[in-house]
């Protein structure tokens, strides 16, 4: 038994086989394959398909296949290199979905109704959700509207150079499509200047709400100062 295999196998709680014996795969499964396909396909003279090692063959005394982590079949380590992995073991596929099972556009539509403090918290729910909230679609449907909601985008009355830079980026379709609006929102949220801007806009909105200019009714879930 090679050094690497000795170290790895007891850790995984797998019974260590005698050296030189095949122990992985199913003998009966391979026997069924042989029975189903009795004709041996000649690859070249003297070598047929069934004589090649697949990792299933339990009769080959010269083989050194061992069980690896997660049911992968790896070759014993030799000269410090673990080589010859079985080439048909695919990793599991992870779906790029929101935690609740629904189409991405519906999920993002739901998230678009959330406010600023709620969204960053949702990024911590799971990797899948974090990936979804960082995707291009989320940039356009989620973070850009959120930046607008918090007045983190300039209006016509903003005449500073920084406002003009943001305005030019928004007006250019090519540049607008590559803007990281999530980062822009985060940067603005961390800027005292921008937060003060939001505070002023909210104060104005409150006055408008009290005067009845916003059209909201008390108790509506979307009515918020």
């Amino acid at each position: 038994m090679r050094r690497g295999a000795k170290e790895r196998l007891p850790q995984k709680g797998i019974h260590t086989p005698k050296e030189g014996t095949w122990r992985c795969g199913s003998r009966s499964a391979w026997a069924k394959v042989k029975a189903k396909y009795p004709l041996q396909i000649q690859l070249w003279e003297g070598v047929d398909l069934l004589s090649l090692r697949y990792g299933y063959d339990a009769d080959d005394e010269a083989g050194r296949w061992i069980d690896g982590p997660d049911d992968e079949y790896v070759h014993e380590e030799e000269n410090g290199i673990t080589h010859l992995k079985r080439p048909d073991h695919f990793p599991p596929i992870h779906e790029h979905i929101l935690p609740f099972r629904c189409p991405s556009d519906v999920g993002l539509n739901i998230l678009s109704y959330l406010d600023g403090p709620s969204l960053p918290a949702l990024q911590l729910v799971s990797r899948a959700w974090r990936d979804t909230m960082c995707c291009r679609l989320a940039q356009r449907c989620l973070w850009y509207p959120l930046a607008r909601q918090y007045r983190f985008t300039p209006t016509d009355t903003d005449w500073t150079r920084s406002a003009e830079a943001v305005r030019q980026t928004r007006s250019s379709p090519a540049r607008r499509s590559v803007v990281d609006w999530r980062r822009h929102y985060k940067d603005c949220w961390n800027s005292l200047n921008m937060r003060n801007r939001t505070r002023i806009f909210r104060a104005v909105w409150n006055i408008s709400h009290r005067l009845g200019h916003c059209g909201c009714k008390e108790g509506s879930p979307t009515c918020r100062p």
Partner: protein
Amino acid sequence: MVVLITSDDERIVVEDDIAKRSGLIRDLLAAPWDPKDGDREYMGIELPIVSSDVLKKILEYCEHHKEEPFDDTYESEDMFADIDEWDLNFITADPHMAFEIVLAANYLEIPPLVSLGSKAVANMMRGKDAEEICDMFNIEKDFEP
């Protein structure tokens, strides 16, 4: 009259005006029909991902709004706009069904109901931290910042 067949094989008979609030059903009814294929009303329209409970709620919404003009836009600009009082009571009556209604309304192509349900679901999620969201949607938390 239109016969709608739900995922639990219940046949629900609906007036045309109410059923046509759904873009999906409206398109299906507008499609040419060969009489050789059988009686259209008898055959019905199968809705394999909509249960009878959810469909009845959606039809209740459609019946209430059957006089209004069609709205085919999934608006996002007026997220602060007011919600009609009847709509508010309708969607908040059973919060757990709101998400099912959103999915079914999206399938049936009823944009105003999708927006209404989305607002209700978002309202359920608002202000909650990651742990509470995981509990709400039964998610295994696999991410630590």
